[in-house]
């Protein structure tokens, strides 16, 4: 698993969320694919990933279940954007104007997160 930390650019209404919320990776929707290497890397992201949204630090931690994200390829934080839509955490990955992917995470509980992430 690889870990990515993004600092939130949008502040969510704190009444909607507890300080920490936990999310389980569901799928990635390719919206527009042009670069073959990026397409390959995104297609290798498997289920079993998690996300931790922490409003006290304004950070989001993504734990993606993949083997392929080794150097020299790395996610650039500036290419990631997040939003919560209809109780789903959506992560927009946009490495270029013509490469657009959207990852979806579903809400889960702390136990599920700790059990699966901390064993790593």
């Amino acid at each position, binding site marked *: 698993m690889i870990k990515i930390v993004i600092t939130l650019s949008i502040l969510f209404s704190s009444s909607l969320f507890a300080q920490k919320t936990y999310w389980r990776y569901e799928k990635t929707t390719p919206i527009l694919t*042009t670069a073959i290497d990026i397409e390959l890397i995104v297609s290798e992201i498997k289920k079993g990933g998690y996300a931790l949204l922490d409003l006290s630090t304004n950070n989001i931690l993504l734990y993606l279940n993949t083997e392929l994200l080794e150097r020299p390829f790395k996610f650039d934080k500036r290419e990631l954007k997040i939003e919560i*839509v209809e109780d789903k955490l*959506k992560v*927009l990955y946009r490495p270029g*104007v013509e490469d*657009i992917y959207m990852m979806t995470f579903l809400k889960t509980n702390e136990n599920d997160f700790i059990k699966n992430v901390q064993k790593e």
Partner: protein
Amino acid sequence: MRLLKYFSIFLMISACSQNNSINIEDIFDITNVEQVLRSKSIEFIKEDINSVPNYSIGLYGEKIDSTITNNYRIHYKIDWKKEKAFPNMFFKEIPFREPNILTNKNGKPIIVTANIGNGKSFDIRDLGVFDNNQVMALKKTLTSAYGKPSLDKPEENNSIWSANLGNTYVWEHNNFIFRLSIYNECFCKKAEIYNLNEYKEHPKGGRYGQLVIYNNIKPKLYLDD
């Protein structure tokens, strides 16, 4: 009467939402492009022009004028709920791919570049929007608006004007120069980009083009020196 009122409100709302895109015919009236992009909630990447290779924005072989300081790469509009993306720059109804707006230090647009149509295999329709006919529609639009192109170079004539793509056409109108290069106008070429998993044979290519609009500026080429 009340119904009419609601109807007019509805019309106003729908007119506003359409305004969240840019028609290229209006762009050169803009004095500050960043302000307009922000007001329309259009996302962009602002770059220092010195960090942008000329070939990456459709200006292969061209010297970029010293009055130009920034480039704005325009992102597609994202619908987070439907997980879709939409183009937000157009020439009449023709959507632009990867538009770039080159501005001077005050943010005034000087050059606009964009790709048109489908550069992948013949049957691809990216975003459900881009197709093989758009570049020909653009050629027709420009011809009906500005007359016959002042320059019409076929692809094999590898002139400095057609250094980037295929057949090249140029229109001049008032202070504007429009250059349109059309790749695969004949529909006789194989695709340049295609997915090996999806095709057993090298598929037929789509048709696309590259549009550059110069506002009150003449293109300068390194070869001219």
